[in-house]
């Protein structure tokens, strides 16, 4: 099967190739073993780059976690003291407990919300569900830091709008919600990542062949029994994989624990790492020791998830035949489910956006009132648009996102080709190497890259190159995933026939492989670009004054208490991201990008 490719992709058919190839007779005696094929040069470079990106900072960080801090006159010594400090401390136990509670709570909340919505969307006749599916991507576009800040404005005990509204309506003594708590953290994180659960579970529901359920019903099973014995059992791999994905993501989460947990004294691993580095002097060894454990947790999670996905074969619910999933007629209840959709959309998009919009129009932050309405001003926007610093950061973010996405997609295309299309021994290792950064929480990646380039100063520490490097490393696995899916669909014959036509490896790659990969590559490029623009947790350890990116500027504004300017920037940033996504989808349609 070849993905649909749009007719307007045109390639000039009359471009001559520059590589010189000699006819058969000219060189009959070139020995096999000494023949140098330039394709190995490209492939070799890609392999070295991937191996370097994936392994070196990581290995170095582990090494570093066994060293004492190095100062001007005391050289570093080998020690276990970092681990001893880190793991004999009662606080670490609390941190571990907090991390687990937060990650489990957040992932389960996201899963429950997401699964319920996915079921309503895929298996019922709820009105407007198609529209809802299209809208579900919006919350994922809003960066975590903005979502968290918006919810602080909604539910903090002092300035939270929801608290104030409820207090005045019901005459409550104290604010009913406190966002600065474990429950607040779980709520914000779980809510923000519920669309991820929604998309994953929707796909699982959609991929399920209804004839599997129908045959159970035909065998005499009741609807409930079918749901229990068939539907849920079939969905188990998808459920476990989804929960693990959400768990790993939640334990890596930095924005929510930093903004909500630290003020309340609730520490998780990510915030502990951040604090270890930001004390004076920096506790790099301690941060590494924390990072290693965090890395262990995420590795185990991703390992189990990969195991489930690969052994999921017997659960294959996709038969390849087209089928139309049934939907259950909910009767009048369908208005309730629509109501749930609307409430959800209100909580996850509308309220956060509106509160940011409101506060962006103030001179000093004030809750909405008739009085405050009189003082609306565009000063916040004037400040943002007038600040060369912010403009600079925005341009930084944009060009880095474009560069990162381009490099990641091209690099992973070559790696993918080696993994999927060749029989080179050890290619599985390459596949795993390129996907290894998946287990790196952003903050841990930041720590390891920082330590490495501090030690081996090749002049990129403190420049934007180090941030770009972090982005490429971090998002390489996404590139791999997008490219692998498309690469598998390209029949080997398409390449072979180009070789039989006389084309060399470069020509085949450029004229056949890349154009056929284009749908997947464009989709991946868009995705990597968007996640790069939003990236905070790696950048925050690697930036230096003068080369901020946009997410760092937001962070700094928050630290400085410039809420109005922050809100104005947030509103514009969210709108910019929305426009970017829309343009991307338009381009995507042009190139026949499939829905992920």
């Amino acid at each position: 099967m070849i993905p649909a490719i749009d007719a307007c992709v045109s390639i000039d058919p009359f471009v001559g190739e520059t590589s010189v190839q000699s006819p058969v007779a000219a060189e009959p005696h070139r020995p096999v073993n000494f023949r140098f094929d330039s394709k190995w040069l490209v492939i070799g470079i890609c392999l070295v780059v991937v191996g370097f990106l994936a392994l070196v900072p990581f290995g170095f960080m582990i090494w570093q976690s066994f060293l004492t801090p190095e100062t001007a006159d005391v050289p570093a010594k080998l020690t276990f003291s970092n681990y001893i400090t880190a793991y004999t401390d009662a606080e670490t136990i609390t941190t571990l407990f907090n991390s687990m509670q937060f990650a489990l709570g957040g992932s389960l909340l996201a899963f429950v919300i997401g699964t319920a919505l996915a079921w309503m969307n895929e298996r019922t006749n709820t009105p407007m569900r198609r529209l809802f599916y299209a809208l579900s991507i919006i919350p994922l576009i809003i960066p975590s830091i903005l979502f968290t800040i918006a919810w602080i404005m909604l539910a903090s005990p002092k300035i939270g709008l929801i608290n104030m509204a409820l207090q005045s309506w019901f005459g409550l003594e104290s604010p009913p919600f406190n966002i600065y708590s474990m429950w607040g953290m779980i709520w914000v994180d779980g809510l923000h990542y519920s669309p991820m659960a929604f998309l994953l579970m929707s796909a699982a529901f959609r991929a399920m062949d209804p004839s599997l359920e129908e045959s159970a019903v035909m065998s005499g099973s009741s609807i409930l029994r079918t749901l229990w014995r068939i539907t849920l059992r079939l969905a188990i791999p998808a459920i476990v994989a989804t929960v693990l994905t959400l768990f790993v993501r939640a334990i890596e989460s930095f924005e929510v624990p930093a903004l909500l947990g630290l003020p309340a004294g609730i520490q998780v691993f990510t915030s502990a790492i951040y604090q270890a580095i930001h004390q004076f002097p920096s506790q790099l060894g301690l941060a590494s020791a924390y990072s290693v454990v965090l890395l262990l947790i995420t590795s185990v999670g991703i390992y189990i998830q990969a195991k489930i996905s690969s052994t999921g074969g017997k659960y294959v619910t996709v038969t390849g035949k087209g089928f139309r999933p049934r939907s259950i007629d909910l009767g009048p209840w369908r208005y309730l489910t629509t109501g749930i959709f609307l409430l959800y959309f209100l909580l996850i998009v509308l309220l956060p956006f509106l509160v940011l919009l409101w506060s962006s129009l103030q001179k000093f932050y004030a809750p909405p009132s008739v009085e405050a309405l009189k003082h609306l001003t565009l000063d916040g926007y004037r400040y943002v648009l007038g600040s060369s610093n912010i403009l600079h950061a925005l341009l930084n973010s944009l060009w880095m996102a474009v560069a990162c996405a381009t490099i990641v997609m091209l690099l992973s295309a070559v790696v993918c080709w080696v993994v999927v299309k060749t029989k080179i021994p050890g290619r599985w290792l390459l596949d795993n190497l390129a996907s290894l950064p998946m287990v790196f929480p952003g903050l841990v990646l930041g720590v390891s890259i920082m330590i490495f380039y501090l030690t081996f100063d090749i002049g990129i520490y403190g420049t934007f190159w180090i941030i770009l490097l972090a982005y490429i490393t971090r998002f390489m696995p996404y590139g791999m995933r997008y490219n692998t899916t498309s690469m598998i669909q390209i029949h080997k014959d398409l390449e072979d026939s180009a070789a039989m036509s006389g084309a060399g490896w470069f020509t085949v790659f450029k004229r056949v492989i890349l154009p056929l990969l284009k749908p997947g590559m464009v989709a991946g490029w868009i995705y990597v670009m968007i996640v790069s623009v939003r990236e905070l947790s790696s950048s925050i350890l690697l930036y230096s004054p003068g080369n901020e990116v946009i997410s760092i500027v937001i962070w700094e504004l928050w630290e400085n208490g410039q809420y109005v300017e922050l809100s104005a920037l947030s509103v514009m940033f969210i709108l910019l991201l929305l426009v970017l996504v829309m343009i991307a989808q338009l381009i995507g349609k042009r190139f026949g990008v499939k829905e992920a």
Partner: protein
Amino acid sequence: MLKVTGLFTQYVSDKGVVVQAAKDVSFEVPKGKLFTLLGPSGCGKTTTLRSIAGLEKPTQGLIEVYGQAVYSSAKGVFTPPNQRGFGMVFQSYAIWPHMTVFQNASFPMEVGAKKFTTAEIKERVMRVLESVELAPYHDRDATRLSGGQQQRLALARALVMEPQLLLLDEPLSNLDAKLREKMRFELKKIQRELNITTIYVTHDQSEALALSHEIAVMSAGRIVQRGTPREIYEKPIDKFVADFVGAINFIDASVKHLDLQQHIMVLESEVGLIQLPIQEDFKVGDAVQVCVRPENVHLSDTPPHIDHLNRYEGIVDQKIFLGEVLDFQVKIREKLILSRVHPTQLTPVGQPIHVYFDPRGCVVFKMQ
């Protein structure tokens, strides 16, 4: 023109097992001839073809074109596929979906060592598209062609460089029956007209018999028999070839009597006595197997007038009407014998019937 000597090729399967796909394959194809590699799936025919193409790297052997080695394990020569200058049509056609019909066909002229001007490319591509009747569709998206058209486009692409050798890997197997028959004639016509040396891989014996100058039947990586279509069909050298190349009856027997004077031998078999021309090194008592093609098994409602022993009485067990022919399954003693006759034979099921076949229409092997 093409000479393959002692070719061995192995590959590693998806499960990591090393498969010996071609074992000691040798053959020679004169210029302008169509040579077919015939065999069941997994017999190594496609691997052999891909080794000739250079898409598979053999482990041992010699492949020469006009005496020039394109692969030689002894001399360490391996010409990459893109420098061999062969044309190839793949089983999946491998039409590039992101190009138009014209772009697909012009690709080989653009990427090869030899440079062409735009006008030359246009002229030659249109001519080759003309020859496969695709010229009117030249600016169409390649994916919007029908199966038969895609097949012809794949052929046009293989022919556009006027290669010295054309490789065809089951080119007709993805077409429906009717189109397959039509394309068979077209392929034969084009091959004979251009006089282009062709290696054809198929598992379809009727295709092989219809198209080839010479056929090599392969099994388990080895060439079992080589010969003209007639030789392969009428004089198979063993049970495998006999069975593979068309329907056939196998009758177990043993040698009963050798008559050197009359040059005949008589066998005692499952169906009764069988008389055959005498063959070398057969002794009385040898266990043998007699093969007789269904079209050589004749039926008659009345006792036939013949001058040999090969006549039997049986009961009609089943009939299958195939249109141009009628297949009878006749039970002689406990043995079912298949006979393919003209549909005018009307004997109903369950009725007795006379069966006979010519001694020269049989092939006999010793039991292995």
